[in-house]
């Protein structure tokens, strides 16, 4: 698999090496052969040249000889010396030519011999010629001629010719031979070249084939290795079986180019389950398979890779896409096994053809898959076992605990048994003694009991009789009055009709009669009502509804009623409450009114001259209502009777004055029911004084139902919050950049309904390098803000659909948008509201260009702000420096100040992200600093961490919690926590809440008048909840008072009673508290009548119905379950807050 390393082995595979060596040898051989051929060829060519030259020389020699002869002959004939010239030149040339010939024939001795012969002949010839010439010159022409005639010259010449021809012929033969030889060597050389080239070509071809085969093998290896590596990466780590399968099959499909795949896991010796797939259709049969059935089963059984071509179209592994569906053309099924055990099977479907490499890889990978599956299985099992062990440990522990309990119980019982045994024995003796005594007494008692029961029976009968009689009476009266009223009613109406005399056909007398009938009828009706009333009171059937009644109001009512009546009768009526009287009384106001009305009306009725007065006074135990008149008075003996029904002083009086005469009886009975009485002092002729005395508090008062009307109140819903209703933002009426927003651009959202002004803003923003989105309504603005997430927003307040302040509030409430700086512009001065809601700036229209530029500039600074600032307020220098050291980190700017004054100053000038402060400061206390920070305008309040060495009382802590979420006491481990908290705040600042977080907590001093100025008592001991409630309710304008338990709540309520300014409007009551829990507290509150109507909302962590009912039973008006749902709590408070 792995090639031996390049350093140790041969540089090339042996076959390639042999090829290369052969090539080198061939080239060397070819070079030698070519060289030799070449050399021979050159030699042959030289020889040819020599041959040719020789022939030329021979001709030259011959011609020179001839020239010499010609010249001699001319001279001999003419005797002119001039003819000798060819002879001398020929003679001169001949020697040189002969030398040449000797050189040219150097290699052939035969030829040389001939040349030497030739040389001899020529020189003989020349000598002959010379001799003739010499003779001629000497004038012996005949001698010369004689010599010529001897033919010696001719014979010489012929010999020369023959020799020359001989030489030439020999030379020509040699030349032909040499030429032939040269040709042969040339052909040989060409052949060598051709053969060499062919051999080389063959070698190159072989080498190429070898290299290519090697390369392919290498590529396959690398592909296989990459595949293995890829898979091993995918199966790394502690994966669950499912994710492992998912990874494996998707990787394989991807790497091998399969279109569909599945992986099965062995779940028993013979069962396989598909646990992951690649591009598998959702519903596929054969989730589990058995060994041996189906192809997969077969592959498992044989434990070898199955390659399937020409897959039937209904094969269970179809290739699906949203467009169509087809069957794969080929299928590979690979069992993954280790040690002959198959752990998983991979099935892959291909639309195209597969080749060996894929199978090879699959075979390689299957082992890895098997290992991974096995180890994952093992891991899962291990995990299960661990869990099981834990479960068992717990189970064991429960058993131990139970055993302990049983043990303890047994011990307890045996102890108790021992004790009781001893006691029993001693008691037994006593018992026996007393038993006899008792028996005696029992007999006696029995006798008495008989007597008693007899008498009780009698009494019971009587009582029953009485009750029956009374019931009959009441029923009779009720029936009677109804029976009486019905006819009386028609009588009254008809009599009235008659008295009106519309037709005018009645005499005056008749009209008067009719009037009398009406009056009498009305009297009768009043009488019937009174009788009924009286009987009800006597039967105890009236319900008293006690509540706190303001006396002044009561008296005013009477005065209003009787003043006019008295004036009409010409008498005076006065009503007074004495100064030392308490303001209120707790009684049934309706009944009290009824009594007073009756007394006053009697007094007015019976007084002809003088005055009637109502006076209210008090003693420690009771209140007195005194009605004094200057009327007829009542004789002493009548004093008692007048209170009895139908027994007035003068039976005729009521006829004179009107009325039924039952009023006093009713009044007296009512007074009794109210726990008081009516007394009378009177002298006939001088007048009477009726005094009603009532206790301050109705003695029979029971805890009643909360008096508030519950119907329909719960249905009261919150006003629907302003929400971006539109789904789409309408295009702006002027062009903006929304279509071409650059991804990294700073975008400003302009919410402005004035198109012209929006245009100005847009141009200005463009000038300063912002991109713009423009919307014209509040709804669109909100939508655009959430959709485009602009870097900043310019917001108008007067928008056509909603107020811009609403938009601002929504923006600041939505966690997605609250970090966006908003700059507000408006015609009206909304600066306070806007800034309070978290706007970063405000400009009043008309706005100058400079103001706008400044606003945009501020936005720019804000956007650029990255440095986070921490303010440390600490008077001790060493501490200050150590905190600075502790907190020192990159891009964190720490400002340290030593006094509260300096701190305020720093806060005014710079916006801090977080503040760490000590409580003891030289100028004023930390508390004061915090309060001033909240109050002062222009001071932005960062999250505060109180870091103090001072021990805090619970009250202090409560106070601090309003400003600071985090309080750290200086101690050994404090620095660690301080660092923690600061980091947390800074992190929050960065992640979610840029800068003005605290201001945002103040959210809306919104239109919610339900909270404005209302005082809410929060009874809760959990600081987290107190903080949450305070920061939720205070910004809405509510004043929050905190009590940490039921007892403090009662104290707070008590302290607030009677002081209108501190009146508590609503109580939020936690249930689980120290000292006095919420349920007890509510019961205590409801015991006091003046707090009966006080709305209480219980906060409970308990969820079951009966827990909630317990709250209601204890006197809560409503409840809300923890953890608190803010919106629900707010609506509950709105519902219950008295209007």
């Amino acid at each position, binding site marked *: 698999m792995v090639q031996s390393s390049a350093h140790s082995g041969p540089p090339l595979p042996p076959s390639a090496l042999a090829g290369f060596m052969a090539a080198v040898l061939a080239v060397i051989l070819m070079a030698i052969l070519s060289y030799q051929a070449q050399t021979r060829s050159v030699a042959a060519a030289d020889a040819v040249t020599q041959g040719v030259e020789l022939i030329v020389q021979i001709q030259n020699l011959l011609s020179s000889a001839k020239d010499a002869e010609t010249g001699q002959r001319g001279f001999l004939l003419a005797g002119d010396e001039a003819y000798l010239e060819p002879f001398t030149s020929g003679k001169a040339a001949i020697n040189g030519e002969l030398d040449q010939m000797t050189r040219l024939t150097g290699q052939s001795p035969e030829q040389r011999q001939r040349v030497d012969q030739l040389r001899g002949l020529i020189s003989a010839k020349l000598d002959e010629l010379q001799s003739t010439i010499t003779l001629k010159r000497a004038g012996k022409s005949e001698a010369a001629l004689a010599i010529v005639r001897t033919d010696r010259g001719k014979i010489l010449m012929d010999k020369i010719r023959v020799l020359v021809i001989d030489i030439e012929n020999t030379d020509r033969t040699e030349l032909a031979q040499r030429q032939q030889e040269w040709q042969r060597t040339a052909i040989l050389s060409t052949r060598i070249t051709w053969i060499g080239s062919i051999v080389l070509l063959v070698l190159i071809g072989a080498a190429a084939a070898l290299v290519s085969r090697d390369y392919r093998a290498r590529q396959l290896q690398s592909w296989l290795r990459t595949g293995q590596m890829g898979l091993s990466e995918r199966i790394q780590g502690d994966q669950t079986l499912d994710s492992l399968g998912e990874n494996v099959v998707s990787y394989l499909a991807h790497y091998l180019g399969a279109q569909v795949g599945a992986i099965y896991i062995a779940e028993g010796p013979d069962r396989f389950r598909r646990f992951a797939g690649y591009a598998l259709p959702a519903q596929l049969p054969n989730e589990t398979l058995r060994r041996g059935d189906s192809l997969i089963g077969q592959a498992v059984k044989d434990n070898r890779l199955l390659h399937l071509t020409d897959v039937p179209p209904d094969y269970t592994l179809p290739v699906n896409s949203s467009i169509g569906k087809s069957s794969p053309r080929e299928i590979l099924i690979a069992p993954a096994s280790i040690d002959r055990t198959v752990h998983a099977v991979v099935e892959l479907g291909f639309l195209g053809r597969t080749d060996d490499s894929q199978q090879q890889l699959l075979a390689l990978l299957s082992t890895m898959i098997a290992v991974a599956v096995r180890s994952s299985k093992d891991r899962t099992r291990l995990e299960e076992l*661990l*869990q099981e062990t*834990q479960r068992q*440990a*717990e*189970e*064991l*522990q*429960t*058993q131990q*605990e*139970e055993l*302990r*309990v*049983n043990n*303890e119980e047994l011990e*307890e019982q045996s102890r108790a048994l021992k004790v009781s045994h001893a006691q029993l024995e001693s008691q037994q003796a006593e018992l026996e003694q007393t038993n006899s005594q008792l028996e005696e007494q029992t007999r006696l008692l029995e006798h008495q009991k008989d007597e008693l029961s007899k008498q009780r029976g009698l009494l019971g009968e009587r009582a029953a009789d009485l009750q029956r009689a009374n019931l009959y009476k009441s029923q009779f009266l009720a029936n009677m009055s109804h029976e009486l009223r019905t006819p009386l009613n028609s009588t009254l109406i008809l009599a009235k009709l008659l008295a009106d005399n519309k037709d005018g056909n009645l005499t005056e007398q008749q009209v008067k009669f009719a009037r009398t009938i009406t009056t009498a009828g009305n009297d009768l009706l009043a009488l019937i009502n009174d009788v009924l009333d009286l009987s009800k009171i006597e039967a105890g059937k009236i319900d008293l509804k006690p509540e706190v009644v303001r006396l002044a109001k009561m008296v005013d009512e009477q005065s209003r009623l009787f003043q006019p009546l008295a004036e009409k009768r010409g008498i005076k009526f006065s009503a007074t409450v004495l100064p030392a009287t308490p303001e209120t009384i707790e009684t049934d106001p309706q009944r009290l009114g009824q009594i007073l009305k009756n007394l006053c009306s009697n007094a007015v009725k019976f007084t002809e001259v003088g005055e009637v007065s109502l006076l209210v006074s008090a003693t420690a135990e009771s209140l007195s209502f005194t009605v004094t008149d200057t009327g007829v008075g009542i004789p002493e003996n009548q004093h008692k009777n007048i209170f009895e029904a139908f027994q007035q002083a003068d039976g005729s009086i009521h006829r004179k004055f009107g009325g039924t005469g039952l009023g006093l009886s009713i009044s007296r009975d009512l007074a009794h029911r109210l726990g008081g009485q009516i007394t009378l002092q009177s002298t006939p002729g001088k007048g009477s004084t009726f005094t009603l005395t009532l206790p301050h508090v109705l003695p029979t008062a029971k805890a009643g139902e909360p008096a508030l009307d519950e119907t329909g109140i719960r249905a009261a819903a919150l006003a629907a919050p302003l929400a971006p209703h539109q789904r789409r933002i309408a295009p702006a009426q002027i062009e903006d950049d929304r279509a071409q927003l650059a991804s990294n651009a700073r975008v400003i959202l302009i919410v402005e309904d004035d198109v012209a002004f929006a245009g100005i803003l847009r141009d200005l923003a463009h000038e300063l390098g912002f991109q713009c989105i423009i919307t014209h309504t509040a709804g669109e603005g909100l939508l655009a803000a959430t959709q485009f997430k602009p870097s900043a927003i310019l917001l108008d307040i007067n928008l056509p659909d909603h107020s811009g302040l609403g938009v601002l509030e929504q923006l600041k409430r939505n966690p997605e948008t609250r970090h966006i700086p908003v700059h507000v512009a408006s015609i009206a001065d909304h600066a306070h509201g806007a800034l309070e809601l978290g706007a970063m700036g405000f400009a009043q229209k008309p706005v100058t260009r400079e103001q706008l530029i400044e606003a945009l500039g501020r936005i720019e600074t804000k956007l650029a702000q990255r440095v986070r600032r921490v303010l440390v307020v600490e008077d001790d220098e060493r501490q200050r420096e150590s905190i600075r050291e502790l907190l020192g980190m990159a891009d964190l700017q720490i400002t340290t100040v030593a006094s509260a004054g300096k701190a305020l100053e720093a806060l005014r000038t710079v916006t801090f992200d977080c503040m760490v402060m000590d409580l003891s400061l030289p100028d004023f206390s930390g508390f004061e600093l915090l309060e001033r920070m909240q109050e002062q305008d222009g001071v932005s309040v960062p999250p505060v961490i109180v870091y103090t060495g001072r*021990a*805090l009382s*619970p009250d*202090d*802590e409560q106070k*601090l919690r309003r400003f600071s979420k985090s*309080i*750290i*006491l*200086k*101690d*050994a*481990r*404090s620095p*660690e*926590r301080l660092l*923690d908290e600061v*980091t*947390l705040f800074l*992190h*929050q600042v960065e992640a979610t809440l840029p800068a003005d977080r605290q201001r945002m907590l103040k959210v809306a001093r919104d239109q919610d008048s339900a909270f404005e100025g209302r005082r809410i008592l929060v009874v809760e*001991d*959990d*600081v*987290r*909840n107190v903080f949450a409630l305070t920061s939720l309710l205070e910004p809405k304008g509510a004043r929050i008072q905190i009590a940490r338990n039921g007892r403090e709540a009662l104290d707070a309520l008590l302290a607030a009673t009677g002081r209108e300014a501190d009146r508590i409007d609503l109580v939020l009551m*936690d249930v*689980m*508290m*120290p*000292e006095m*829990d919420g349920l007890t507290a509510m019961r205590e509150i409801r015991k006091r009548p003046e707090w009966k109507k006080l709305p209480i909302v219980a906060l409970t*962590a*308990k*969820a*079951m*119905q*009966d*827990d909630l009912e317990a709250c209601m039973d204890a006197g809560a008006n409503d409840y809300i*379950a*923890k*953890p608190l749902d803010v919106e629900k709590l707010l609506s509950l408070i709105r519902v219950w807050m008295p209007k």
Partner: protein
Amino acid sequence: MDAEIDPTSATHGQRWEIEFRLLIEAIYQVYHYDFRGYAAASLKRRLRTALVNFECRSLSQIQDRLINEPGFFGLLLNFLTVPVSEMFRDPGYFRALREQVVPLLRTYPSIKIWVAGCSTGEEVYSLAILLREEGLLERALIYATDINPQTLAKAQAGVYDVDRIAAFTDSHQRSGARSSLSDYYVAAYGRAVFDKSLRRRIVFSDHSLATDSVFAEVQLISCRNVLIYFNRDLQDRALGLFREALCRKGFLGIGSKESLRFSSEAGAFDDFVPQERIFQKRDPA
């Protein structure tokens, strides 16, 4: 045990199972006590004891009495809960609290502690004594909650058999005590009553980890040998409540045989003192 209600035979076993579920459901429906998430094996064992005690032949009889007999549930509840506890149980746990958790608690101006499943209150008083010794009790508040009002009443009374005090004292000393346990109780008539001033800083309340929600933010929760009676889902719910109730980096102590490892909430806590099963809430930031 009565041969007729032998739960080992199959049909009886099934019947027993049905009756068991019905009974648990009846308790939930009528009394709103949710035992449905409790570990069944333990509950069943305890119900078997109850059967013997109430001389009932079947759980259906118990169910009948439960629904129709006022006051019966109170008696049964004593069998369903396992009120076992002792002071300074596992002294090592308290030592770890004292040495490693308390120094961090010291940095909070007021300290809230929740003893969930306080049973008869021994652990609550142990914590109170520990805090007093460390000078923290006056600014601490301990919420002691349990579902059984009777054991809660016992806890509130703070009266224990004097025979147990010896063992308590020993454990107290081994927890790194700075004072004598006898400083905190008065013994008479075979009973020891614990100092009322300890109780001033303890709120006893009825609270169910199965149905109720978080009521306060606390820095330390001690809930030992309570989770063992719950099944996994209910354990997860309880641990979820603890996570919610704890402040940033608050502490959670559980029983020596309990583990967070398999809970879905395991990721919310870090080991703090692993050998004493004290965990710290993980900072999400």
